[in-house]
């Protein structure tokens, strides 16, 4: 056994560009694999799915370690029912059914416009960075409009977001993590304050965005407290732009590596929605989630003690040959593709409908122009985070500028 645990190797930045052989090793090692620090790692589809649905597994990090004094309460992503359900339901009111059905679908036109504007600006460029020029600005612009955050403040919240993502990353505990956690908490407080201030400006003057809806809710029983509004808005802004960027960039990377599939999607654009689902399986934006059992739990013959960190490698479950036929093949026509790209269970991705529309619009607009493009760097440089995995830059050569 190597001195390094699998979790250390998976989170090691040197392995960021291709963690999939490590996931295969993880699945070989067993269904529930104990790490040297006592935590558990789960990489097989059926066990991950079972744990994501098991009401005895908590998403609340406070069941692992007591939070430092003054740390903000976790957002609903990391709370359990019934509190999770209450906050997610309130957050859903201006976003989706049953209160706002059709809201995201109605944004298709607007999202396509943003996409076209971005592409227009790239028309005469021989080289582009798919991340900085396209995959990042698109979801940021969309989530800013949806929430009601000024787009020009992006440099401001990007820094907070970076600190929060770094502190929330899955990694073995070490001395750096305490410092990172502190920086992350501080960023969450500042970003929350910023977003609450924006919301307050809209009290009595709603501007059609979600922050306006939150502060102008007429039913007092449906109002978020100031703290809940801060946590929820921070969660939505970060989740809204730190994940879809990976999905779009991973999509371009995957298709440029497979010219046959790129060509097929150009000829059969109706396949795009299924191609996006396959991307969510094959190269998901979120690779891992952490859960903590609230009781001693036996799973796949292994007993996990109450309060033990259990990391679910969703991206590994997506490549489990016991669930998916030829899992390492990218197949936009794959049947029965119930992937874990959006998780599963009560925390199933809140923003999934928006991510789908964005990825479909982005790839649909880009694909016709990628016929002669090629990757300038393969593998590309990756972002540091292991949990939210995606290219930091994706430079490509267009060879010939596209026709108008």
């Amino acid at each position, binding site marked *: 056994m190597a001195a390094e645990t699998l979790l250390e190797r998976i989170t090691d930045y040197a392995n960021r560009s291709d963690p999939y052989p490590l996931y295969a090793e993880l699945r070989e090692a067993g269904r529930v694999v104990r790490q040297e620090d006592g935590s558990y790692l789960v990489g097989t589809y059926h066990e991950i*799915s*079972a744990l994501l*649905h*098991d*009401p*005895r597994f*908590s998403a*609340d990090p406070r069941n692992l370690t007591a939070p430092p004094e003054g740390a903000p309460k976790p957002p609903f992503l990391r709370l*359990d*029912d*019934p509190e999770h*359900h209450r906050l997610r339901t309130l957050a859903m009111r201006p976003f989706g059914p049953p209160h706002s059905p059709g809201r995201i679908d109605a944004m298709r036109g607007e999202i396509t416009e943003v996409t076209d504007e971005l592409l227009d600006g790239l028309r005469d460029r021989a080289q582009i960075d798919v991340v900085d020029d396209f995959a990042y600005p698109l979801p940021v612009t969309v989530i800013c409009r949806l929430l009601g955050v000024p787009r020009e403040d992006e440099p401001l919240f990007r820094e907070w977001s970076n600190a929060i993502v770094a502190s929330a990353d899955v990694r073995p505990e070490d001395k750096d993590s305490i410092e990172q956690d502190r920086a992350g908490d501080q960023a969450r407080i500042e970003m929350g304050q910023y977003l609450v201030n924006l919301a307050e400006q809209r009290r009595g003057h709603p501007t059609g965005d979600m922050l306006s809806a939150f502060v102008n809710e007429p039913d007092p029983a449906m109002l978020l407290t100031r703290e809940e509004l801060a946590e929820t808005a921070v969660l939505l802004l970060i989740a809204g732009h730190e994940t879809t960027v990976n999905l779009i960039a991973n999509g371009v990377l995957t298709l440029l590596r497979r010219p046959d599939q790129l060509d097929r999607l150009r000829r059969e654009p109706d396949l795009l929605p299924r191609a996006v689902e396959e991307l969510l399986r094959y190269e998901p934006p979120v690779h891992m989630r952490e859960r903590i*059992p*609230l*009781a001693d*739990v036996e799973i796949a013959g292994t007993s996990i003690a109450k309060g033990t960190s259990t990391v679910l490698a969703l991206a590994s479950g997506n490549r489990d040959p016991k669930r998916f036929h030829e899992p390492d093949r990218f197949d936009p026509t794959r049947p029965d593709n119930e992937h874990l790209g959006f998780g*599963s*269970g*009560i925390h*199933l991705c809140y923003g999934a409908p928006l991510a789908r529309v964005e990825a479909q619009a982005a790839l649909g607009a880009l694909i016709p122009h990628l016929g002669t493009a090629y990757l300038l760097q393969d593998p590309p440089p990756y972002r540091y985070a292991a949990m939210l995995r995606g290219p930091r830059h994706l430079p490509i050569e267009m060879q010939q500028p596209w026709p108008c």
Partner: protein
Amino acid sequence: MAGDRRDGRIVIVGASLAGLRAAEALREEGFTGSLTVVGDEPYPPYDRPPLSKQVLLGHVAADTTGLPMRRDPDADWRLGVRATGLDPVDKRVVLAEGESLPYDRLLVATGTRARPWPNPREAALDGVFTLRTRDDAAGLAERLAAGPQRVLVIGGGFTGSEIASACRERGLEVTVTERGPAPLVGALGGTLSKLAAAMHRNNGVDLRCGVTVTALRGDGNGRLTGADLSDGSRVEADVCVAALGAVRNVEWLAEAGLAAGPRGLACDAGCRAFDMYGIVTDDVFVAGDVSRFPHPLFEYQLLSLEHWGNAVAQAEVAAHNMVSAGPLRRPHLALPTFWSTQFGLNIKAVGVPTLSDHVVIAQGSLEERRVVMVYGYRGRVTAAVTVDMAKSLPYYQHLIETAAPFPPVPGAADRPIAAEIPVPSDVPDPKGLSHGPTVALTGHLPDRRLTVVQPTS
């Protein structure tokens, strides 16, 4: 051998969900022979769940619920044609016009029909409906849109409750009569039926339990005016829906010597029909509501289901087995699941709630109208029903599949104190209900006398 089975003549009798999915699956499995689908309704396959929900609410028209096709099954569709008989020796399906269709393998997917109001003269009154088909739904929706004074729903099962819910959402006065102690009691047992009764009453339904309708009354012009109830009271209503459960469409098989009866056509786990002596056939297959099949998780008793998901899953297994040789055949092992939406609640179930002696609230609470109810039989989990907690269902499905002990072990973050206290499940004998059960254990023997029916004429 396998090659032979991919060719030849297959006839599917029944052109609804199970028939369509089987036809698609046969082609998906590589069947290249001739395929004929017979349906007594004149329409291509359509979806029925919206008929008691969106259609009655006026959100969609009854003729817009056509089922999307996964692929063109390249079939000869004989729609608007009733199958009236089966000759299993000569291998022919007899059609109403006298024509007969020869087959090498047959799939019976004739489903069910609405149990009619038993008095034909009263049933013929203008304003009296049943709800099963597209035409039923179109007629009822039109009548509801016209704004009747009061709608009487006879039977508080799922269909009756959904109709009542749609009426209230449209602002219509509605009375529901149920012979049993509460709505949904036959399917969900005592505890959740009390929640169902509260939902009816809180939403303004005039709910009358423990009573039956003894007569429907009409005016001189044949129009419904109301109903007499067994407690001596009278309900004035200009629309009445008899929601009395379903009748299996097996009469056409009466002379075929198969194990067909009021509970359906019995088959093995591979969807092959039994004959009346309990001998399994190898050329007559069955899928969907008309089938009655053994399930290992429920003591191998023969199950009768009226579930959308079962029709799909069983049709796919039947199709696979129709074109596969013995060792390559698959069993139909899918767990029963069903859903209903009514009074703003999403009710979803897995397993067989009627196979239970106790229940326990495992998550949430009745007061919040958000609950997971787990059903146990002799110390193991046999079913779970969620109210507005459908995302929790897969966990309990896993417990059923692994015969986990009942009550479920503690540890859920939202586990209520009530989770420590199992109570009797109180599932009544279906004979005492107005509504038939949509899931029923029907015993072990395919050749029981009760499965023999006489032709009605």
